[in-house]
């Protein structure tokens, strides 16, 4: 993972000239400094290897054939090792094949990565402004409803229809996210509470609308919308739709916003130390509202990948677990745009590969979730990984990165 933050023109997180020295001194305690945050490539690779090793142990002890060879392990251990090796080999071969082997697999990986990247960017952006956004799920649900409604009821020419549906999703996501920022800015309500609660509210709002005649599939009583019209779908090559391109574009925009714009500078300043930012004349409430609105926009973009990209019908499950996985993606990506894209691709691959692991090797799909968690865990704890592999670190031992509740 290369470091996007060390560009020569990267502004300092807090402008020393405009900030009271006491505030500046307090800043490092809370800062979310990306440059100290990026692990070396070695650490990341070793973390993945370590996660795969733990995963292998789980595979070994969940394969019946292997367990069956345990009773006679001491008389004929070769069976155990052979079966174990085969089980692990088959499982991971299926994982790689299902995610990277061939055009179909790659398409699946990219299609799964695209929403993760977008939603992850939303979480990252809010993170940089010092907000812990657990609300991607709710923002996605509401946005999916909006995109779906425009997609399957309005009648517009191809292309324009998709664009309008996309805009509807972005606006709905922005509103749902913006409310969080507004509540935080106006009343101080903690965003962790409000996002969790609004996630659930969003689910019931979606269920309510899907219960209305206008949102339901004709001749169906299920809470399931029709798929969007063909004129509202994203252009696609084979099965690979526009989503991944949009995701990369979004990452570029977020990068520009955070690293090159005044607004982004203010966001990072507020994220680093709201008191210092306020002293420097920035409007902290405005930053909170903007950051959460933009996070909502990105979450809205994420859900268009499934609703408009794959023409999935809108249900209360339309966001899947993307909203929560996005948090992990953002954290693995160290809340930087480039990191989020890479982490999103990795998670997309693991999720696509997890499916074929189940199909080809009969391994439960939850294993890929366990692998994802382990990878993030080990990436976040370089000291542990180095200790296990007996690598002499660069003397830093452990990286002290902390962030409290903020606010």
């Amino acid at each position, binding site marked *: 993972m290369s470091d996007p933050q060390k560009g020569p023109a990267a502004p300092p997180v807090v402008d020393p000239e405009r900030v009271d020295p006491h505030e500046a001194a307090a800043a490092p*305690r809370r800062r979310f400094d990306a440059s100290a945050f990026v692990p070396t490539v070695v650490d990341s690779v070793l973390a993945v290897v370590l996660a795969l090793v733990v995963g292998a142990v*789980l595979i070994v002890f*969940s394969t019946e054939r292997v367990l069956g060879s345990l009773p006679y392990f001491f008389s004929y251990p070769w069976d155990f090792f052979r079966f174990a090796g085969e089980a692990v080999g088959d499982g991971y071969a299926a994982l790689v094949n299902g995610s990277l082997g061939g055009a179909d697999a790659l398409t699946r990986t990219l299609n799964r990565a695209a929403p993760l990247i977008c939603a992850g960017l939303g979480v990252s952006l809010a993170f940089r402004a010092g907000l*812990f956004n*657990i609300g991607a799920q709710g923002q996605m649900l509401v946005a999916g409803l909006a995109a779906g409604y425009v997609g399957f009821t309005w009648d517009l020419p191809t292309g324009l229809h998709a664009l309008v549906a996309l805009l509807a999703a972005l606006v709905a996501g922005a509103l749902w996210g913006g409310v969080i920022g507004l*509540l935080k800015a*106006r*009343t*101080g*309500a*903690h965003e*962790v*509470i*409000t996002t*969790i*609660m*609004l*996630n*659930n*509210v969003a*689910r*019931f*709002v979606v*269920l*309510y609308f899907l*219960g209305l005649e206008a949102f339901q599939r004709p001749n169906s009583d299920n809470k399931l919308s029709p798929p969007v019209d063909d004129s509202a779908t994203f252009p696609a090559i084979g099965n690979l739709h526009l989503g991944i391109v949009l995701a990369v574009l979004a990452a570029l925009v977020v990068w520009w916003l955070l690293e090159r714009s005044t607004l982004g500078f203010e966001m990072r300043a507020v994220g680093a130390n709201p008191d210092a930012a306020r002293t420097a004349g920035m409007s902290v409430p405005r930053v909170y509202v903007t950051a959460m609105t933009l996070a909502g926009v990105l979450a809205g973009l994420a859900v268009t990948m499934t609703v408009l990209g794959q023409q999935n019908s809108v249900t209360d499950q339309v966001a899947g677990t993307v909203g*929560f*996985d996005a*948090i*992990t993606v953002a*954290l693995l990506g160290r809340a930087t745009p480039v990191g989020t894209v890479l982490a999103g691709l990795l998670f997309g691959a693991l999720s696509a590969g997890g499916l074929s692991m189940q199909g080809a090797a009969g391994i*439960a799909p*939850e*294993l*890929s*979730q*366990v692998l*994802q*968690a*382990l990878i*993030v*865990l080990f990436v*976040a*704890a370089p*000291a*542990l990984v180095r200790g296990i592999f007996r690598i002499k670190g660069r003397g830093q031992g*452990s*990286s*002290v*990165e*902390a*962030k*409290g*509740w903020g*606010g």
Partner: protein
Amino acid sequence: MSVVDAPARSEAPEEQVRDRADVRRQVRLVVVFALAAAMVLLFRLTTDSFSVTYLLEAQRSADSQPRSLDGSLVNWVALVLALAGVVLAALNRVPRGGLGLLLYVLVGLSFYVAFMAWAFADQGEGFQASISNPIPGTISIATPLVLGALAGVVCERAGVINIAIEGQFLAGAFSASLFASIALSSLAFIPLWLCAPFGLLGGALAGMLVSAILGLFALRYQVNQVVLGVVIVAFATGLTGFLLGQIPSESTGRLNNPDPLEPLAVPVLSDIPVIGQALFEQTILVYLTYAAVVVVALLLFQTRWGLRVRAVGEHPKAADTVGIKVNRLRWQAVLFGGLLAGLGGAYYTVGSSGAFDKEMSAGTGFIALAAVIMGRWHPVWAALAAVFFGFMRNLGTQLSLVDRIPGDLIGALPYLATVIVVAGFVGRVRPPAADGEPFVKA
């Protein structure tokens, strides 16, 4: 709402210049009481027939037949009380302290009854649903939430952010089911009545195991604790789902089929009318929950250990300077929190329904986390926040019996109510100063 919105602050007795916070409090009270009055009036205007029935128990049974309630009278009482509140607030004569609390409780309670009378009125022909006692339902939803919230409070008071409550719930639920099932089917030396409590032991151990992961990475390897919590939830969700999938269907009966805990009636207390049976004919886990609230509050605020825990959560360096072993204390707090959350998770299996199911805690760990923040990191307030949530959730269940409000909107009620309470009454909260900061001894 009345319990939560009572502000327990003391303003300086200045006559001339009024604090802005004081003015804001008055405005808020006027608005709240006026809203309550307006809604009660609306209930009156939209009701045709006020005949409503109610039950003092949770369910209809042979010896608890519905009795009739005079909805009109209830509505008048609520209206008068709410208007009295408006007048008092407008004159800035709302008493502080106990008397004020009494006013809030009265208005809140009468509003609740008036609301229920409205919701259950005009049911038309056929089966008449009755208003039932909300306490049993509230307790059953709130029990795991309270335990989870206490776990969060203990950890975070010591300066370790615990987002992993959901993970501890899942691990606790799974392990409790496993332990209780194994005890039931294969450990002949355990008496039958001890099998389910044995499950509680399993739940507590699993919660502590998850806490140990939290502690290891947060304290030993100084991983960002927000990242860590999210990851542990994902890990526990995946692992419990994976392990559940590994239980072959023929041995489900042996490994995932616990007997739920039996309710035990507390001798005298369970005979109290209305609340007795609801509160004191519960499983041992519920009694443990009651005890846990008291114990955690006492531990944190009355013992030396608690003082030290709070010290390392606020200012670890200072605590270290006077010779307190910061990380050892944090380890103790994290493990104790894991024990509580693991018990909370056990509620989902041995405490209520029985067998473990994938992701069965369904996000309640995050609700518990919200309760921690809503309760301002105080065990009693956090527990009350959890109970409030349980109450609203139970209210939603009750309202789904009648069709005054569309069912899906009722589902959103507890969550919306929490947002309103947090935005309107709790406001800005201040976490323990060193929450989430690893301590490295210089």
